[in-house]
């Protein structure tokens, strides 16, 4: 006989405001199989959980329905509470009457009726539930970090320092990411390279870290604790084992005018190149599209000057597969292509640049050697206009979000400009100054008060050329008048966007992303570095615009989460797995072909003498992920899925017939 307990939560006022909780309790008490029904203000609280545990014991309950929030929120909490009272945790069902009911309906009668239906469905389901026990699987104690920017480096170092092996995959020839491009960093004005390069070197030399630069993750199979990653190493044309990084090839390469992506196309590089002098590994690669030997079978100078014979023109891409227990995604961000801003003259006037270009100019190791110049004639700009929110906070361009870092780096740019050009004047057009961070507001005040940056609140309508100057037409909304500023240089604070190819990578990894293409956390507040795919974690700006301290913090957080998986020898997995009924399986092979995880295999049924009786399909429980695709496909109805079996689903459909 079923003895079901139904517990209805008020969630403070969150549920009780729109759902008549007493009515739900009364209705639940009438349902077949229900032995106890009661309510409480906060079921998830300690007294709430204790009340549930006590009731289970006192009434020898055989099933539990908690009508409260989404199972994603507290299913685990109540499963634990049930287990503590000796009830199998898989005999617990959540009736989601908050997210799916009280929060989305205003009419109290309708919401109450719906809540009763939801509870009825879950009571019907729980009556069909069977006790299950979690599946134990072994764990591969090695982590994969995708992306070698500052957050990826931090994640890799944190894991490696704990004694766990890490493979750090970076698609560029060097690790370092955007941070390597920066000049000085807010709010301390310490040089970016000076604080970053020691970490890059530490990562490269760490005995537990294996760098795989110029490589990309192509495929990720498996599941938490047991991933198999396919990694494509691009052809470098330079044998990294033989190369000593002497740089002779760089000096002699005759192709010297390839625009340097690292320098945001402000300077040239050679066809055989390393992105920047402090690159890690400090070994060049050949740009196959620019190299004369590879395009026209001419030249070959680098091969001649290389003292160690490291140049390999016949190098080819290679694909390797490796096993990992956890994956950290730290693929970072891009900035919006400035070409979108025709009205600001980007692409038309050489003296309209992006912030990242300005950053390269300002960097001591940049293409101008740290000198701020007008790209059109190399002259020192007497005045600079910085335009904020180029593409951010702009509904019309589809990016209503704030890019978060621009207010701060613009204050820094204005400040550094003043430090280099003492009689120069910086103007900043802004919407709001957002300086929420430790010592951030003070930093912006310094730019205004000590370094006399002039802040104008308003948007810029357009930029045009007049005489030798750029004229910036905008509005000062505080003074309530149109303004016109003559500038030598205009700097656009272009929006932070997801990496090009971010969605494709999300699909490769099987993680979710938002409408912009930033990766989604499983919970925005309480689980900020976890994805909906167990064992895959997020670090840095791939999930939202982040500054360096946030990127570093999230890298360390992701590492801690990954280590919690990697530190155990075995892992307990949800028992939501498919099972074959040996007696009825006709071995049609539909399920074997359809399974996305190759979890179903042939199994030979033999008698005691070893004679073959028949071949059937059998599910490997440690590989099955419980999608249930096989169940819907099975023609003889011989497979079912624990936790979501046919009877459980039909019982819910049945329960709605009274609706």
């Amino acid at each position, binding site marked *: 006989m079923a003895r079901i307990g139904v517990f209805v939560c008020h969630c403070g006022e969150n549920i009780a405001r729109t759902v008549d909780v007493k009515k739900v309790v009364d209705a639940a008490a009438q349902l077949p199989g229900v032995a106890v029904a009661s309510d409480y203000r906060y079921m998830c609280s300690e007294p709430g959980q204790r009340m549930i545990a006590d009731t289970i014991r006192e009434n020898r309950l055989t099933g539990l329905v908690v009508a409260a929030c989404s199972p994603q929120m507290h299913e685990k909490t109540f499963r634990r509470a049930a287990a503590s009272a000796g009830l199998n945790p898989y005999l617990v069902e959540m009736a989601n009457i908050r997210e799916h009911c009280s929060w989305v309906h205003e009419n109290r009668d309708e919401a109450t009726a719906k809540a009763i239906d939801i509870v009825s469905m879950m009571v019907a389901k729980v009556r069909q539930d069977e006790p299950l026990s979690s599946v134990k699987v072994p764990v591969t104690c090695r982590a994969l970090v995708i992306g070698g920017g500052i957050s990826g480096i931090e994640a890799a170092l944190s894991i490696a320092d704990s004694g766990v092996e890490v493979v750090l995959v970076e698609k560029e020839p060097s690790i370092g990411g955007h941070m390597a491009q920066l000049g000085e960093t807010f709010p301390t004005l310490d040089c970016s390279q000076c604080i970053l390069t020691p970490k890059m070197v530490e990562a490269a030399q760490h005995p537990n870290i294996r760098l795989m630069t110029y490589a990309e993750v192509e495929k990720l199979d498996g599941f938490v604790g047991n991933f198999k990653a396919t990694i494509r190493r691009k052809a470098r044309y330079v044998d990294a084992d033989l190369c000593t990084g002497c740089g002779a090839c760089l000096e002699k390469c005759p192709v010297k005018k390839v625009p340097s992506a690292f320098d945001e196309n402000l300077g040239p590089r050679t066809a055989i190149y390393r992105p920047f002098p402090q690159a890690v590994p400090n070994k060049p690669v050949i740009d196959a599209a620019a190299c004369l030997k590879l395009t026209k079978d001419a030249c070959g100078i680098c091969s001649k000057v290389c003292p160690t014979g490291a140049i390999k023109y016949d190098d080819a891409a290679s694909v390797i597969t490796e096993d990992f227990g956890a994956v950290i995604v730290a693929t970072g961000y891009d900035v919006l292509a400035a070409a979108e801003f025709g009205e600001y003259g980007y692409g038309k006037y050489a003296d309209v640049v992006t912030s990242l270009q300005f950053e390269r100019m300002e960097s001591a190791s940049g293409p101008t050697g740290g000198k701020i110049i007008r790209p059109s004639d190399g002259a020192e700009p007497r005045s600079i206009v910085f335009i904020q929110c180029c593409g951010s906070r702009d509904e019309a361009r589809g990016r209503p979000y704030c890019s978060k870092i621009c207010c701060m780096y613009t204050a820094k740019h204005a400040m550094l400009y003043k430090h280099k050009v003492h009689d120069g004047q910086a103007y900043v057009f802004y919407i709001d100054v957002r300086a929420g961070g430790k010592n951030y507001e003070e930093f912006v005040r310094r730019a205004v008060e000590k370094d006399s940056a002039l802040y104008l609140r308003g948007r810029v309508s357009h930029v045009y050329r007049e005489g030798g100057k750029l004229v910036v037409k905008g509005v000062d909304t505080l003074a309530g008048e149109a303004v016109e500023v003559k500038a030598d240089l205009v700097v656009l604070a272009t929006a932070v966007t997801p990496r090009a190819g971010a969605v494709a990578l999300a699909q490769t990894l099987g993680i979710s992303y938002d409408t912009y293409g930033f990766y989604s956390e499983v919970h925005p507040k309480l689980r900020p570095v976890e994805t909906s795919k167990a064992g895959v974690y997020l670090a840095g700006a791939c999930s939202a615009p982040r500054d360096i301290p946030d990127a570093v913090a999230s890298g360390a957080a992701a590492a801690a989460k990954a280590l919690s998986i990697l530190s155990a020898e075995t892992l307990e997995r949800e028992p939501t797995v498919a099972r074959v009924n040996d007696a009825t399986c006709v071995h049609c092979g539909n399920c074997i072909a359809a399974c996305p995880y190759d979890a179903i295999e042939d199994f030979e049924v033999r008698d005691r003498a070893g004679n073959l009786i028949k071949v059937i399909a059998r599910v490997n429980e440690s590989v099955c992920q419980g999608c249930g695709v096989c169940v819907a496909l099975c023609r003889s109805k011989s497979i079912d899925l624990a936790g*979501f079996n046919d009877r459980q689903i039909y019982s819910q459909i049945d329960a*709605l017939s009274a609706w």
Partner: protein
Amino acid sequence: MSDTREFVPRITAFVCNWCTYAGADLAGTTRLAYPATVRIIRVPCSGRIDPVFLIKAFEKGADGIIVSGCHPGDCHYSSGNYYARRRWSIFPKLLEFIGIEPERLTFTWVSASEARKWADVVAEATERVKSVGPLAHFAPLAAAAPEGEGAL
């Protein structure tokens, strides 16, 4: 239901755990109001949904059905929703054959971040089902059915 009252459709939704269920959760978190016409049955993947579930739901009194999963390419289980897509592209023909209006079935994709889309899907499905009225089809069958629980 008396004739004087406005017809309120009953819609059963079969949704996957990872995208649409989470999208509906987000609609709650962001307090997006939508009609209280839908009852959600959660399954791990849209590929888990057997066509017989839908027939059974109609038989048990649903006036309309929503089936929703992860967008193509975004399936949590990598390819389950492709099986769903194939199934639901053929299924309306069967519905037509047994005399159920295609307006009663909404097959769509709602991701975990598409709270607004979920609210819109429910509102639109409600209007569509209203336009074809209650499904009286199975009432005589249900009345004649033997007592007791059970699927199939």
